[in-house]
């Protein structure tokens, strides 16, 4: 009896959050699926069912497909770069000393700034105008100025650099917390076995970092797929369509151009892509976990 009552209490406690989740997430997502099959637009009061027409249009529009590619490319690159750097920093800074603590705070500092602020800041640092800080440094050392945000071949990478700068510290803190939980006796045992630094890292540290790795990788991958604010502030998706991402395209088509149904269809595709990515990752992480435990 007591067990049942307890379950009921738990259930009641979940209800408020569950209602919020349904109203704010499940319902809008379901509605997006529904609207993606219609011709709904801001400027068109009559809604009609049009089948898969919107999806067909998405895959025949080179701009939209390009935006999808940019987002995927960006997400994979930021996941790899940010996490590799964060792990290296975490391992190097995982010790007790005042200097190390200071460096740790310094690395984490950009994460407390708003993305908008960082974006505007870098727009001025990376500008091709005469006073651009980055180009001034490059020319001081005899290099040629680079059009960081205006060259369609590198604009996406420029935005990526700013985001790596901003978020690596944040990932690092999670890795450091994880490192602290690794039992020191394991390293002592490795020492006795005659392992060198790299071997200790590969055989002891990395496998036991599993929880932090799985969390950080998933977060940066999904965050990368959702990329909007930094691009919006720094390049507005340009030059041309060179830095358009899924989100900027959604906003442009859905709100600016009023093609609501088309944007809904794109949102559905976005949902499916993120779902596939996160499921695949979780599958591999589970395999990894099994391998560590066996």
């Amino acid at each position: 009896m007591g067990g049942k009552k307890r379950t009921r209490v738990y259930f009641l406690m979940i209800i408020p959050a569950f209602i919020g989740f349904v109203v704010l997430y499940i319902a809008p997502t379901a509605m997006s699926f529904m609207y993606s099959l219609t011709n709904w637009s801001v400027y068109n009061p009559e809604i009609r069912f049009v089948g898969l027409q919107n999806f067909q249009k998405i895959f025949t529009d080179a701009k939209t497909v390009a935006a999808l590619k940019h987002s995927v490319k960006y997400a994979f690159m930021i996941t790899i770069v940010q996490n590799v750097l964060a792990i290296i920093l975490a391992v190097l800074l995982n010790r007790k000393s005042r200097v190390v603590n200071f460096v740790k705070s310094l690395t984490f500092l950009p994460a407390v700034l708003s993305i908008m602020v960082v974006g505007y800041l870098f727009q001025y640092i990376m500008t091709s105008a005469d006073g651009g800080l980055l180009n001034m440094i490059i020319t001081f050392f005899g290099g040629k100025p680079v059009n960081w945000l205006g060259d369609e071949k590198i604009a996406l990478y420029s935005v990526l650099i700013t985001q790596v700068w901003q978020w690596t510290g944040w990932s690092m803190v999670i890795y450091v917390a994880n490192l602290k939980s690794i039992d020191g006796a394991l390293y002592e045992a490795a020492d006795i076995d005659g392992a060198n630094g790299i071997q200790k890292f590969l055989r002891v540290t990395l496998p036991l970092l599993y929880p932090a790795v799985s969390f950080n990788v998933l977060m940066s991958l999904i965050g990368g797929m959702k990329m909007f604010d930094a691009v919006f502030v720094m390049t507005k998706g340009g030059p041309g369509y060179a830095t358009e991402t899924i989100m900027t395209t959604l906003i442009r088509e859905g709100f600016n151009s009023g093609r609501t149904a088309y944007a809904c269809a794109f949102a559905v595709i976005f949902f499916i892509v993120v779902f596939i990515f996160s499921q695949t990752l979780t599958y591999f992480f589970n395999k990894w976990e099994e391998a560590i435990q066996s």
Partner: protein
Amino acid sequence: MKRKLLALLLSLTVIAGSLAGCGNEGSNAGASDTAGTADVSDTTDADAGATDTESGEVVKLRMMAYNAESTRATYLQYLADQLPGIEIEFEFVSNDNFDNVLNSQLQAGEGPDIIEGGGQTKLLARAGYLLDISDQEFIGKYADSGLQAYTVDGKVYAIPLQSWFEGIYYNKRIFEENGISVPKTWDEFIEIHKTLEAKGIKAQTMGAQSYEPMMKQSIALANNMFYSDSANLAFDEKFNTGEGKLEEAWLPAVEEWYKIIEEGCLQPEMLGLSYDQALDEFATEKAAMWECGPWAVETILEKNPDIEIGMFPIPGTNADKPGWLVGGPGSAWAINAKSKHIEEALQVLEVTSTAEAQQALVADNAGSSFVEGVEIDLGDIYADCDEAFKAGNVYAPWTAAWTNGQSVVEAYGKSLQEVLSGSRTVQEALAEADTTNLNLIDAMK
């Protein structure tokens, strides 16, 4: 025990305070206890007042605009003086996000009482979001050319504010010192770039990070070479139905414009410059020319009070004809059909249609008025544009005539950025604009 009592009393005060905050009556009884909640009751007092028109209290009208408040300062002060019963809550949303913010609010059945409309006005009117104001007396004061852009099926949905225009601002000192005069043809304009660059002076700056400047400059050439022939004005109607194609109609004009890229006067580096950065370069006399409109003058003079500037229209291929400016009945006030204060909003439009209000509008943002009989003196800066104004050489098809104007020029302007990077041709950019137009026509079916 005392602590518990204190806690109980405190929480009761908080509850009373928050209830007072929620109450629409705005009674001060519960809130007067604590200073923190007094603010809340103040605002609710005002809110309650806003719904109460008969008691002679102030009605709040929300006005959403993409021109900054500073460009309307004199006018807003004039409205406040003339209409003491109405308080305008001016809400600025930058042009980049304007449609996005406005459309989401309108779709939710809300939105501002008064809307600053531009290229999107016809679309909004067709979708039933705007109030039909054809029968209002003040509509009769406006010239037809001003109302045309805001008329759908014979019904008027907005009143035009002062016209807007863009030409090329130039630094008079740099021009004089280098013996340069205002260009009469596009080739001369390009030649000026070469002369100045040869002397190590940056000729033209451009914030091409935004899609707008190249889009407008190239359309100025279309004005010169295509729309100057009045037979071609009918093209815009065909474009609205999807029958007319920019790729065919505008190609010669835009190819002429492209010479400025071919000759290296516009460079890919400009794609890394924002509007503000370009303004800085011009204001600090690092560049001799910049394409923009009157709204920028105040900031330029603020940054450099000593600068002497003028504006010339964008020249075409014929030296005997004055050049063209890009512009027209720029923006307009429309009323949200679902506004709760339609009567008051109409009063604002009525006052706006007076000669005094028109002068007040122009005081902070130069332009001509569409109210008949109102003479505007634009001042010395625009002396070189006189001929163009007299010839009526001011046009912007996307705000004046196109149904899907805003989205089409955005697609076109973004493609021109790719043209400047060298990855597209002007023909492809025009085709891209055509495709966007067809997609949007399709979305309205």
